[in-house]
């Protein structure tokens, strides 16, 4: 299993990296220099996708469809069928569900290796409201056969995931937020699609998280460490195929498991992990932290995270609560 910076001083402040989308765009530019068949397809979304530098450098390698996400995916499938390495880039809220039928049939069922890139995912658009939130994309796409789903937590995972997607001959869905992300890995660390990364080790509580929810889990682990509580933070960057073994080991080796996701608690990582544990016959105190069955409160992404407890403090409290309730039993 790949390891993150397990050995770093847990009390170190995380260094802030850059938005994952910037790393995405740079990685595409680097690959485009060597691969003239690499194409980015956008639906009036090059600005939000941080792709303006790419478009300026490789104007022949960006295809603009206008605001037409269904068409974006169909065109991308057609291009991929002719051997193009396609990164279809569009806001996650529109790409994953408006174009779901094109993703299912033109890409996944037809088995053409389009890389679908959902940008400004989760609640990144904050106060723009629920029309622009994608807290259903993982649920929708997990039920589609033949697509690999990856939500990188930091710049390192982004770089590795984008390169892996480009090299793969399978359909991918990559999910990115907007804000600068702390570096969670040591330089030169490994990364394997489908293999979760243990960022901090511990055997009291396990946080299993993905994407931009990993950093608050990591910070919660720092707070818990000061209280003498060992927290295992797992970056479950690949939502499909899920690393079942990492989930089972966390449940067997820790006293409780908390899943953390910038997604509806319906159909997301929490339910997926619970299913793995039920089928394995592993019973463990378990809690899902994410967006409940409601349209989110108004506010920035940070406000929304705080409201639903997806923060260092919120997760710290959730961990202590679940561990205390276990002691009572």
């Amino acid at each position, binding site marked *: 299993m790949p390891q993150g910076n397990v050995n770093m001083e847990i009390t170190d402040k995380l260094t802030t990296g850059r938005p994952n989308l910037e790393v995405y765009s740079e990685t595409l530019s680097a690959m485009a220099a060597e691969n003239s068949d690499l194409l980015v397809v956008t639906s009036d979304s090059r600005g939000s996708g941080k792709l303006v530098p790419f478009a300026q450098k490789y104007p022949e390698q960006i295809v603009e469809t206008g605001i*037409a996400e*269904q*068409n974006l995916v169909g*065109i991308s499938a*057609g291009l991929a*069928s002719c051997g193009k390495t396609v990164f279809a880039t569009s806001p996650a809220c529109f790409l994953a569900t408006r174009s779901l039928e094109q993703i299912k049939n*033109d890409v996944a069922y037809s088995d053409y290796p389009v890389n679908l890139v959902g940008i400004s995912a989760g609640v990144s658009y904050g106060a723009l409201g629920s029309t622009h939130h994608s807290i259903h994309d993982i649920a929708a796409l997990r039920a589609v056969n033949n697509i690999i789903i990856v939500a990188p937590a930091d710049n390192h995972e982004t770089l590795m995931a984008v390169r892996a997607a480009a090299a793969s001959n399978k359909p991918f869905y990559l999910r990115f937020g907007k804000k600068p992300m702390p570096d969670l890995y040591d330089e030169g660390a490994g990364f394997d699609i489908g293999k979760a990364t243990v960022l901090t080790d511990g055997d009291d509580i396990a946080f299993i998280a993905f994407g931009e929810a990993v950093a608050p889990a990591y910070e919660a682990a720092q707070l818990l460490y000061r209280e003498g509580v060992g927290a295992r933070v797992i970056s479950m960057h690949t939502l499909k195929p899920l690393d079942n073994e990492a989930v089972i080991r966390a449940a067997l080796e820790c006293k409780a498991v908390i899943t953390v996701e910038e997604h509806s608690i319906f159909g997301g990582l929490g339910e997926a992990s619970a299913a793995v544990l039920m089928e394995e016959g592993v019973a463990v105190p378990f809690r899902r932290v994410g967006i409940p069955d409601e349209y989110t409160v108004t506010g920035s992404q940070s406000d929304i995270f705080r409201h639903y407890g997806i923060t260092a403090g919120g997760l710290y409290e959730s961990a202590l609560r679940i561990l205390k309730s276990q002691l009572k039993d």
Partner: protein
Amino acid sequence: MASCSDKELEIKSAVLRLALLKYIKNANAGHTGGDLSCIDILNVLYNDVLNVSPENFNDPGRDRYIQSKGHAVEALYVVLASKGFFPESDLETIGRYRSHYVGHPTRHVNGIEFNTGALGHGLSISAGIALAGKMDNMNYRVFTLLGDGELAEGSNWEAAMFASHKRLDNLVAILDHNTLQITGRTAEVCNPCPIDEKFRAFGWVVTHVDGHDIKDLRSVLRSVPFVTGKPTLIIADTIKGKGVSFMENVVKWHHGVPDDGQYKAAVRELELRIKELDDKTA
């Protein structure tokens, strides 16, 4: 086959009609009316127009055919079988447990490019393939077959706008304009007309053809593109159920399966048609 006479292709159309009815009857399922309305188009495409064969199916330079109205799959199956993409006897398994021959096209079947059947997908896919051809300086053309009821799907119009914006003159959409859909007359369900004016307004070149006139189809399909820099729409006026008189223009044959008596009558009518054509040739 490019040297076939019109008459030979007319006979072939009747033979293909017999075959598709046979396999629909055998499977006890199929989209009979739409199969019969588009079979002449497919016959001319595969035997006179498309540079595609079992031998060159993996060649990047091959012409592409994307059947957007995927439900008319039995027509496509019998044409592909007749071209040698797979043995015709495979079609005895249509719809059977674990058969690759599903009620809509899939890439498990040799000769099929995309899994279609959800309507409103083929034009976008075809635009993507056409764009790749332009980028790579390839000379292939992309043909896609649309239904007229299908035009209610908005994604078609997204693709129509894109194709003219990108000047995809290697893209040819053929409309199987049989004027019926499962609920009734397309004009009464949600009228797509005037289709020609709409596509022209989207920047396409539009022409009409009699979708059952082999000579007319050959002439039109062989002469695309008509205008450099513009995608082409060929509105093929067709009759749903064409070739079996009691099925023609009757809504219930959209996915109706003939009973034994109806099947015999249909076979008799088509065999008679073949005999007449043979006699004329002789």
